[in-house]
């Protein structure tokens, strides 16, 4: 009789231990699943967020099999923007104020670029490298890029009014645009990757941007942009200038304004 009780007690204890172990294992499994679910959802969210900066197919290839090294030749319009006199400004203004001014500037410029189907590839100090036609093929990329530059001009006027009202220094912008073929792909090191375009097309846009100071204008385009642009944009031809790394002198055009009928519905 005593033996039977003993066996029953041992069995009950064993059952209780087993139940506890099973319960713990299930809880642990549930927690692991929940964590996995959260991570998966986060990954899904990130992949969609990244699709604003790189083609979705590329983002998915990166998720599935690591960083692809393959680049793709694409016809793009490159917009390069820089602030005049930013270095002296950065030395004369309190750092926190400077960061606030810069962030306000980037926020407005970014909105002007994305509203016209462009995407910001890189911020270099106070400079902006924006691409049109790099993520998706875009037959209207040149009109988009020039409209974007005009929107940036307009945004800066409004922002300067705000800065002046707050007794802060105002900003002056130079924008260079060039159209051509470049290699689009993920570029960088494993620690820092970005989807961008490399090639002469980017260098020329940057050099043309630098010419805005020499010509004392804010938006300059190359003949490649002018040829693809809606002829109703008002332009002013400027004399050719030598550009570093380019064999022939490059003629440029200052963008004055867009014709009234080319109104803001073009977004």
């Amino acid at each position, binding site marked *: 009789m005593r033996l039977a009780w003993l066996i029953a007690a041992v069995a009950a204890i064993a059952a209780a231990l087993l139940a506890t172990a099973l319960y713990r294992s299930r809880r642990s499994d549930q927690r692991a699943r929940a964590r996995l679910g959260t991570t*998966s959802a986060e990954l*899904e969210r990130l992949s969609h967020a990244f699709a604003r900066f790189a083609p979705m197919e590329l983002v998915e290839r990166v998720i599935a099999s690591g960083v692809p090294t393959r680049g793709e030749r694409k016809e793009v319009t490159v917009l390069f923007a820089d602030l005049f006199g930013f270095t002296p400004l950065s030395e004369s203004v309190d750092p926190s104020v400077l960061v606030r001014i810069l962030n306000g500037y980037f926020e407005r410029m970014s909105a002007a670029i994305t509203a016209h189907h462009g995407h910001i590839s890189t911020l270099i100090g106070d400079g902006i490298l924006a691409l049109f036609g790099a993520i998706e093929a875009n037959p209207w990329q040149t009109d988009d890029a020039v409209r974007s530059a005009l929107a940036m001009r307009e945004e800066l006027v409004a922002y300067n009014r705000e800065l002046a009202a707050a007794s802060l220094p105002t900003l002056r912008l130079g924008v260079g645009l060039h159209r051509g073929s470049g290699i689009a792909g993920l570029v960088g090191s494993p620690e820092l990757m970005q989807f961008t375009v490399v090639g002469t097309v980017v260098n020329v846009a940057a050099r043309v941007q630098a010419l805005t100071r020499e010509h004392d204008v804010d938006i300059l385009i190359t003949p490649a942009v002018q040829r693809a642009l809606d002829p109703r944009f008002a332009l002013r031809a400027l004399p050719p200038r030598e550009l570093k790394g380019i064999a022939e002198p490059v003629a440029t055009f200052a963008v004055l304004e867009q014709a009234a009928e080319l109104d803001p*519905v073009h977004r």
Partner: protein
Amino acid sequence: MMLRDVEWEACALQPRHDRELEAFVREKLGAVPSAVPYFAASPWIVRALTNLGYNGAPLVGVDYALADLLGLVVSQDNSCRYCYGVQRTVMRIHGVPEARIREIEQNYLEAEIEPRTRLALDFARRISRASPLVSASDAADLRATGWETPAIRELAYLSAYNVFMNRLMTTAAIPITGVERVAGHWAVGWLAPLARLMMRRRWRHSPGTRLSPEQRSGPWSYLVCALDGLPAAGVLRTVIDQMWDSPHLTRRAKALVFAVIARGLDSSLAEREATGLIEANGLERGEIEPVLTHLSSPALDPVEAAIVPFARGTIRGRPTQLQERTRALLARLPGEQVVETVGVCALANALCRLSVVTQLE
């Protein structure tokens, strides 16, 4: 992307109840979707959203469960919160466990999906993304796993149908509160067996139907004929004809919308068809190219000048971008013209992405 993360603007369109139209929808679908009153100004849109789906165009070779999954995946890819909510509810009614739906929406790339099904879903996503436009070679993997041409055509059609619905609901910013409340309600799971019984008779496979000689002509007949054999072909013919005859926009304006979207997607077949229709409706060939190159021209009338750039904006973009553009268009055009434009853009986005069906042998 998760349902709750998709930003969605308030709808700027005015709903209008049309009893006759709603009775038609109720008879076909068993209920009137909350989107219907917003499109009542253009009855062809309501008829299209009712008939282009399984109820009006039963499937021939593709399994209904796969078609549901395709709808979920494409709607998620297009960030259409309305269609996503609807598709979720439909799948739960069809008996798909909540956990399975969540697994797919949380991580489509890693979700356990049978390889043959995944290929079909990837094909549908590529058609929807159209970056670049899908061609016959994209169907090679499908063929290798045993997919036959008629079923591949049907997959392409289903993808285009979802593009139509996604663009329609997203561009119009149809309110999503009701749809999402139903999609997430516990009772959907409990009532699913009953709903399944009621719907089963509606969703039977069709043996296939042939187009009549009259259905083989008309705008975009090259696409309709390429789908011959599927019930969807005849339904699509009717939808295109009703859209073409709808009075709120001129035929030239509608053809311009198609041409712009065809240019944006690099669909030369669709562009050729659309430019032929533009010419037939009063714009000379020499005047068309500047419109398609710069999205504006003095040759356009004020309505066309407003809808041509708008059409371009519907090709790609986040929901809020599309919805802001619709709001801006409403400031320029009367409501019924905006509703019609939204419908024509949605149909053009679907049909221009469907060119691949003409290349499948």
